[in-house]
């Protein structure tokens, strides 16, 4: 086992893992605060990548601006999805909510195929072809950007939840929505910006990962599956769990793909969550209710 190859695999895994963490953080926030399992979350990742592509090619804006616009637009779409579907259904059974989010996912994915076409697209980025050497590890600048931007975004989210007034309202809602409402917290507002934040993060992930892969209207399926694996492994509602589980999944997939089989790489990741769940059915970081 060559050390250079090994270090390279770890670095690739951490970058992939960080993208998973961004997707999973939104998913786990929506569950932790609002008790909603949003099956359509991956579609916001897909929309993030596509809007970055279209803003870049149609309006000729540079990549960074396109990514920022895409995150804001998708956050707005998330708020709209909340207003139309999730907020009216908030008192319904989780079964109803899960099924309607599945309907929303199919709607966005197939609507996306209608609008964007089924052929793969490639998001242009000035960082995609430039290489950066860190010790013996070689990464494209784009992949370094994925990691760095994700770290910055996650720190910002952490500070937001921990210290801002809105963050405290979120945590109160997570602990007890009725109690929070009684103390005068506007639950509707919490719903709105939790969705904005979650969908914005998903879109950011899509915009960042877009230039490193081909994008299709069906990548939302892939994204939500990865997000779910990470969230389930870390414990539904746990942000810390999502961070560790996401990086772990990325690294294990990368090592499995490098040393065992590229084709079965995905199955290795899934096999891992099953092993974890047999040991801890509610995930690695599950404790009592609330945001962690």
């Amino acid at each position: 086992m060559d050390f250079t190859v090994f270090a390279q695999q770890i670095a690739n895994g951490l970058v992939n893992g960080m993208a998973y963490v961004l997707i999973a953080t939104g998913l786990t926030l929506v569950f932790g605060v609002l008790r909603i399992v949003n099956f359509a979350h991956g579609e916001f990742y897909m929309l993030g990548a596509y809007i970055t592509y279209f803003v870049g090619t149609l309006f000729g804006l540079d990549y960074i601006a396109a990514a920022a616009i895409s995150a804001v637009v998708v956050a707005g779409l998330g708020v709209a999805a909340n207003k139309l579907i999730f907020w009216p259904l908030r008192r319904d059974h989780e079964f109803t909510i899960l099924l309607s989010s599945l309907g929303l996912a199919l709607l966005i994915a197939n609507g996306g195929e209608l609008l964007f076409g089924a052929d793969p697209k490639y998001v242009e980025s000035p960082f995609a072809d430039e290489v950066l050497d860190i010790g013996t590890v070689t990464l494209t600048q784009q992949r370094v950007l994925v990691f760095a931007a994700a770290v910055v975004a996650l720190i910002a989210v952490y500070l937001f939840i921990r210290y801002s007034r809105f963050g405290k309202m979120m945590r109160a809602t997570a602990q007890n929505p009725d109690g929070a409402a009684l103390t005068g917290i506007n639950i509707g507002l919490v719903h709105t910006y939790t969705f904005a934040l979650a969908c914005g993060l998903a879109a950011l992930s899509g915009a960042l990962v877009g230039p490193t892969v081909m994008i299709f209207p069906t990548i939302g399926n892939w994204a939500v599956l990865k997000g779910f694996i990470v969230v389930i492994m870390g414990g539904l509602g746990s942000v810390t769990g999502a961070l560790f589980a996401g990086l772990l999944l990325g690294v294990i997939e990368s090592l499995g793909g490098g040393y065992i089989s590229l084709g079965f790489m995905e199955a290795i990741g899934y096999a891992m969550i099953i092993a974890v769940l047999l040991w801890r059915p509610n995930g690695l970081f599950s404790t009592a209710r609330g945001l962690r």
Partner: protein
Amino acid sequence: MNTNSHGQSLGQPLAIAGGVAALAVLPFLAGNAYLEHLLVLWMLYALLALSLNIVIGYLGELTFGHAAFVGVGAYTSAILSTQLGLPPLLGLPLAGLVAAGFGLVIGYAALRVVGPQFAILTLGFGAILFTITNHWVDLTRGPMGITDIPPMAIGPLAFDSARPTYYLVLALVLATAYLCHALVGSRTGRAFLAVRENAPLAASLGINVFHTKLMGFVAATAIAGIGGAIYAHYIRVITPDIMGVHNVAALIIVVIIGGRGTILGPILGALVYIGLLESLRVAGPLRMVIFAALLTGTVVFLPGGLISLWQRWRNAHRSENNLPATPTGLPSTEGGAK
């Protein structure tokens, strides 16, 4: 279904006999091979939806992995008949057994959690089976799929065209429908419903919730496997797409639109699904957008599915004639999960 207790003890068997007779003569009314093919697809989806309905409707758990078991059954029988030369008639029960084996292992692991976590876990298991099928080229030929699968045959009777296959699947649908009906009336079935309505209460009454759910899940996967095997021997070609997210969504749509927790609901849902799928063929990708809208619309506005429209109408009709009305929406013994 639930009408015996409401003074229709004579009407119900007659209605069922009439329905079965109508289904039996349908291929002769179809007139052409294309419509007969659609009838087979309708019955196949009805069979698969009835099996999924055991989990969604009676156990009250949502599974996103059902298509994977259909695929396991299809691949089991296809591989046995193409590579080992086993007659498809033997492959059919083996497909059910292998699918049930997978169902047992996966159910044992996944049913430790309930609700959304279970749904997500089954999605993950389904994805594992899909990935393995797609990449284990030596066994499954990967994305190329298995071709030249021999048709099903019982002795000299070959099910190599739509009409005989229709009767084969119809027989299985009727058998499954009867099993579901008998199940709901049995002690085991009542345990299913008790677990669905209130698991802690059911446990306190001495029902082993985990074993009850596992039993229902394994039964559902066995039927799914048999349905998959028939599909493979009828279409004669299978690819890993049979296990894909698309098929998962299709089966859920059929059960929900028809009416979960009922027997006629999944059969009706399959008719609507196949009918719309074919009549909207020109619409292309817009079809799935329409189905997605139908799914969301049904979940929000008509939680009991299309079948509940009939129940509502019947109740309205009854109240006009001063007959006792059954509760609207989901009836207590066969209602879906709330």
